[in-house]
């Protein structure tokens, strides 16, 4: 179950400050990296909500993000709608898509759930890939960023955009944390731990899981809107299952079921990738080895491990949702 512990609050703030400093004082490319981290972190938070708390390891989170991005881009760039309503429609589309996937997959568990979400995600990917109106695999451009000039913000300035991204990351985290502390979030954890008993307590677990997916779709959708506005361009690449795979690596690397972990994981993965790719084209192998090592080291992830040591040290018995590797296949 989720608790916003002091350690988590401090880590969250430290991570945000680090990102803000990195973007402000680093080179131009540092901002690009920070935005990449923000997008990946929000997507990973959304996945952590499903996988870490609900036990639903989804491979369609990229698709959830992509549906929002496409929804936003289609409404604004193709149909000429104003930006904010377009973004809302994008988010709404992601919520509907994720809710539907959640609803039809709610009876499946473990590897079957993974495969079912893979199937729906890939169907969405194929849809956009084949859509010639939307440029197929080449995607389309002409997307603009929110006009915030009335509050004095120039979103086309990369630093301003990065700061806005950080604010949205904080909002995504805050919203997810609040929901995970609510009756809804705790019940989701309960379903993960013992679905049968939850049913016996009168909870419609299938509907609950579907709602959790829909909410997760909303958070993933935020990442999608930022991604579309960041590149001002959109292509089906966003939806492909490996995007979800990458988000999963981030969650595992940072710490499953911690919400802060995904942010740490995203920072580590993106920085690692950029550092290593400066020296070798074979950074995939490195990421693979890091993933293997993380799992072999106990699967708690970097933040999860720190939290584990911290809790041991302080001897304060705080119930934290530890990684559950025991989903029934």
């Amino acid at each position, binding site marked *: 179950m989720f608790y916003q512990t002091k350690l988590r609050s401090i880590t969250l703030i430290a991570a945000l400050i680090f990102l803000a400093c990195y973007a402000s004082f680093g080179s131009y490319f540092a901002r690009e990296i920070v935005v990449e981290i923000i997008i990946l972190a929000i997507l990973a938070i959304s996945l952590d909500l499903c996988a870490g708390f609900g036990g639903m390891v989804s491979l369609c989170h990229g698709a959830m993000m992509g549906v929002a991005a496409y929804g936003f881009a289609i409404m604004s760039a193709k149909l000429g709608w104003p930006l904010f309503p377009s973004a809302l429609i994008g988010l709404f589309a992601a919520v509907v898509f994720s809710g539907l996937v959640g609803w039809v997959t709610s009876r499946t568990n473990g590897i079957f759930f993974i495969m079912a979400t893979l199937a729906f995600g890939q169907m969405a990917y194929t849809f956009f890939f084949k859509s010639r109106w939307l440029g197929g695999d080449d995607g389309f451009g002409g997307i603009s960023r929110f006009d915030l000039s009335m509050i004095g913000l120039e979103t086309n300035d990369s630093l301003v955009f990065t700061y806005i991204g950080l604010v949205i990351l904080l909002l995504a985290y805050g919203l997810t944390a609040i*929901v995970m502390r*609510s*009756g*809804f*979030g705790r019940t989701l954890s*309960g379903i993960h731990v013992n679905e*049968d008993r939850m049913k016996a*307590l009168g909870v*419609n677990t299938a509907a609950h899981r579907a709602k959790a997916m829909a909410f997760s779709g909303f958070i993933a959708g935020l990442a999608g809107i930022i991604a579309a506005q960041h590149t001002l361009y959109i292509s089906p690449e966003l939806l492909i299952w490996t995007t979800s795979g990458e988000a999963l690596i981030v969650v595992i690397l940072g710490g499953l079921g911690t919400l802060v972990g995904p942010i740490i994981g995203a920072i580590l993965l993106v920085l690692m990738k950029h550092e290593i790719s400066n020296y070798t084209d074979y950074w995939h192998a490195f990421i693979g080895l890091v993933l293997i090592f993380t799992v072999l080291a106990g699967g708690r992830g970097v933040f999860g491990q720190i939290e584990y040591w911290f809790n041991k040290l302080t001897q304060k*018995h705080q119930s934290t949702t530890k990684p559950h590797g025991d989903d029934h296949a």
Partner: protein
Amino acid sequence: MVTTMLEVKSLSKDFGGLQVIHDLSLSVTPGERRVILGPNGAGKTTLFHLLAGTLKPSNGEIFLDGQPISTYDAVKRARLGIARSYQKNNLFETLTIRENLMLAAAAALGKSTHMFKDTSKHADIRQRIDEIAEQVFLEDQLDQTVATASYGNRRQLEVGLALATRPKLLLMDEPTSGVGPNMIDRFHRLLEQLPRDITVLIIEHDMDLAFGVADLITVLNFGEKVFEGTPTDTRGNATVRDIYLGTGGDHA
């Protein structure tokens, strides 16, 4: 006016030809404590599955408070007020006892779909947790993780989870299975202190407990009802002695 809380009419269940429950009828009045007795394999737990909705009957009807519920699934029946404690612990193992009760209380109070308010700060949920903890003697163990709690405490929590939903009808499947005499005493007290607006069906092997709390006793054998009567009548009945006490005398 409804005079029965639970009405079961010619209920049958077979698994691929094997009759587990056969033409069983029951009538339980509101507030009654009904004990179900029977040797292993008599179909007691299956009966609970049928009542709770985790199994579908092959035949027959079930009414709760006058309402036909046979077609409802477990979730819907739970919402109508049927709660169940399990013979084998079926708890939220990785969570604390408080969290377990919190989940049950949130579900019962309709708060499990609330998306924004922190459940641990809900006054009525906290009140419910405290009440139940007191009822099942777990006030001091609330922050212990279930996985590390003692077996007895887990049995208490098993009942606590069911009670936390404030059911109309409580199905208790061998609440004392595997616990020592001290603990049985506790359960005895617990049952006696339960408010009378809860109707209770208990499967119980401890005869002192069973006879002590029961208003009426129903005896099952091979899925059929073979006897029904007061504890005194049951004690004196030869058939019951034969089929139950004769074979199952070495009760836990």
